[in-house]
């Protein structure tokens, strides 16, 4: 018998607007030393499934309608609260997605780490503070935190995201659980850190022979780590098989769609850049943020002397990890962030010297697409109002033809005309991003800066939005700066690529040239860390690391 056997699990959410079948008749099993990946897009029920195992769901609205989850022969779904606390403290541990919010900012990480040892539900397993401290330091070393003795008393804000996730892993492992549930543990991390964390989880698992359930939306991440894969969609299991079966011999349409949606390879459309037609020129741009706790010399140098040029008609990809200054660079170009020094020329006009009033006609020519489609639309304005606003403001439409113009825009970005009077919250993430794109192209701009426009979206939606962007660029003769942390996406969409790190440009080149022959060590490391949705090559690669 396997360590955990989930059988016919159904969880419904009962709300005022009816019943949502979040999880519907799901079964899987996982054994010691085995990694099971649960893959699915947002809303597929993958997290709900795993949260229910530890009784972490809010009930109501959630209700477990049917099913069993036998852990060592005991049903997790029907055991009482005391029993559940024993399972949580000794047998099953969980790692959450966002290391920034899953640690208590007011308690030192050491204190948080030893909590499960000194307050164990099982009194016989409680340890003294000094023993617990030794154990915690040992474990911090094991998860790759150096100087763990000194860092034991540090607070979470003194750690980077990757380090915090290591602390979370240490905390999960401190009571030597037999089952470890990881809910998208690397989604919030940079690609190089992601590779390190994945390798860490894998080595620890092999060393301790724990069972791992790994929840992810990213098939690339799963390829290297999973023995078995369950693909979920809308609460049901679409396919369950070993990793090779899923990646190489899938029969399921949905799995095929997921695999096909992973951006791969080079840009297919030709480079439309018009040679010697410089549209945007940035010279030695510096954007500093004042850190009030420090002297002016301690300013945060988000962008520190960047020069670049974009030709009319081309798509320039801007790649960097979090904190590299890529978003600030985009916002500085659009005059949304005040710059400290340097110049920005648009068609030969220096923008940063213009007054706010003089800038208005230029603003029309440059638009931005933002990352988070949930935050980038005014929740109190309908689609119609959102799209009509720029048209009316810039005099591109009048009262007579505004309806028709808005409809035209909605057609352009692939939204149904009938949803014109709906509010943003009535749309899915992908549809919202379409509205945001519609607003950006409404002013008939020449340059669009897209700041991570697809990173908040599911992989199949991501593919659709990328194709929409490519289409619109072609149709409306746009020039684009495409900012992203996802190298595969950037390769798929851009003609040229600029790599940024810590506020400066590391390297610029034609996309394919740069991919095949990166010059700088930083670029090489970045490219090496991209997860590939191919278990065999992933395994080969990780054994070489």
């Amino acid at each position, binding site marked *: 018998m396997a360590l955990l056997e989930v059988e016919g699990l159904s969880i419904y959410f009962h709300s005022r607007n009816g019943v*949502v079948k979040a999880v519907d008749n799901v079964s899987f099993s996982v054994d010691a030393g085995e990694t099971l990946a649960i893959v699915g897009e947002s809303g597929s029920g993958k997290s709900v499934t795993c949260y229910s195992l530890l009784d972490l769901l809010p009930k109501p609205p959630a209700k477990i309608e049917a099913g069993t989850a036998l852990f060592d022969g005991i049903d997790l779904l029907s055991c009482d609260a005391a029993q559940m606390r024993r399972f949580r403290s000794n047998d099953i541990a969980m790692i959450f997605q966002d290391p920034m919010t899953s640690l208590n900012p007011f308690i030192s990480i050491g204190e948080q780490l030893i909590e499960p040892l000194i307050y164990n539900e099982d009194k016989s397993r409680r340890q003294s503070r000094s023993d617990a401290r030794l154990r915690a330091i040992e474990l911090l070393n094991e998860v790759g935190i150096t100087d763990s003795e000194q860092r034991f008393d540090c607070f979470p804000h003194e750690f980077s995201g990757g380090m915090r996730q290591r602390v979370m892993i240490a905390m999960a492992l401190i009571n030597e659980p037999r089952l470890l549930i990881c809910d998208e543990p690397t989604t919030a991390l940079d690609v190089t850190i992601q590779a390190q964390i994945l390798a860490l989880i894998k080595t620890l698992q092999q060393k301790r022979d724990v069972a791992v359930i790994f929840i992810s939306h990213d098939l690339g991440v799963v390829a290297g780590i999973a023995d078995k894969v369950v693909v979920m969609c809308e609460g049901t299991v679409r396919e369950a098989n070993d990793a090779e079966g899923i990646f190489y011999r899938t029969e399921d349409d949905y799995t095929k769609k997921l695999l096909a949606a992973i951006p791969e390879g080079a840009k297919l459309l030709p480079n439309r850049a018009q040679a010697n037609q410089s549209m945007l020129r940035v010279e030695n741009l510096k954007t500093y943020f004042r850190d009030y706790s420090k002297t002016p010399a301690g300013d945060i140098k988000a962008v520190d002397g960047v020069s670049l040029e974009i030709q009319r008609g081309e798509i320039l990809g801007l790649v960097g990890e979090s904190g590299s200054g890529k978003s600030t660079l985009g916002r500085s170009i659009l005059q949304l962030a005040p710059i400290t020094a340097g110049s920005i020329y648009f068609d030969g006009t220096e923008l940063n010297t213009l007054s706010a009033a003089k800038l208005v006609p230029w603003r029309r020519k440059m638009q931005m697409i933002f990352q988070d489609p949930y935050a980038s639309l*005014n929740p109190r304005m309908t689609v119609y109002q959102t799209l009509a606003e720029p048209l009316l*403001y*810039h005099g591109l439409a009048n009262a007579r033809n505004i309806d028709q113009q808005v409809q035209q825009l909605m057609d352009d970005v692939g939204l149904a005309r009938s*949803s014109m009077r709906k509010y943003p919250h009535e749309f899915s993430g992908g549809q919202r991003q379409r509205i*945001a794109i519609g607003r950006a192209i409404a002013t008939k701009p020449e340059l669009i800066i897209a700041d991570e426009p697809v990173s908040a979206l599911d992989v199949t939606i991501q593919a659709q939005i990328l194709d929409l962007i490519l289409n619109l660029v072609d149709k409306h003769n746009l020039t684009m700066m495409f900012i992203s942390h996802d190298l595969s996406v950037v390769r798929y969409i851009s003609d040229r690529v600029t790599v940024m790190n810590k506020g400066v440009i590391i390297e610029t080149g034609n996309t394919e040239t740069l991919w095949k022959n990166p010059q700088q060590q930083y670029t090489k490391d970045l490219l090496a860390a991209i997860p590939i949705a191919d278990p065999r090559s992933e395994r080969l690669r990780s054994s070489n690391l």
Partner: protein
Amino acid sequence: MEQISPQHQEQQAQQEQRAQQEKGTSLWKDAWIKLSKNYLALFGLSVLAFLCIVSILTPWIAPYGYEEQNLMLGATAPSLQHWLGTDIFGRDMLTRIMYGGRVSLTVGFIATAVALIIGVLWGAIAGFVGGRVDAVMMRIVDIMYALPFMIFIVLLMVVFGRNILLLFLAIGAVEWLTMARIVRSQVMSLRKQEFVEAAHSLGLSQWTIIRRHIIPNTLGPVLVYTTLTIPSVMLLEAFLSFLGLGIQPPQSSWGLLINYGVETMEEYPWLLIFPGVTLSLTLFALNFLGDGLRDALDPRTSKD
């Protein structure tokens, strides 16, 4: 999730149908549709409307004149001639409550409106512009907080003479401070949001952004605070009148009636109970309506 479940599709179809029926729908029209389905809010609205109409018509429909005394009668319990009894001067309570409503409701609404307008604009501008402007504007608020408001109002009264309209304005001019702080904190978090940045990059002027994108998104807390301000303003008026700064007998207001009622609570309880019940009813109605409006003006709550 682009792939939508059958349920969702059904829901969408319904919504589309509705959207077509309500062609030209706006935030306020939607709000009205939602409000008309919220019975508690409708109850609140009807109570308030009833009280307003009665107040307006009082000079014609009141059973007695507000100055009419009957010292021989003195304080009597509710009877057929005097439904709500009479006070110690033999004045009819129903009449006094009706006339009192005229003052209390006007104070409540006008003073709150003054507070609302100043507070929202002040807070929105301070929060949106930020930096030095914000610092100066909020220091002014702090200074006004520190000033004892009584001195402020007494000063106004001394300079401009005692005048009921001035009283409204004076109370409003004191009550906007908290509103400004609430709105400012809301605006500060809103202005960092991407949709405001998007509005900037569309080239919209600052004022347009404040008006179209910022203020509508502060409505929730503003409405709730407004419904709390109206009653506190009514009681403030009573306090000022009690000190002789507001209105004077034989004119009355609910607050004043309650104040006098408290003094004679043990002998003549009805002098406290009836004005008290009227004021409480108004507050309940306001709270129900305020909550209803907040939900109705939030597009995220469903229309059903």
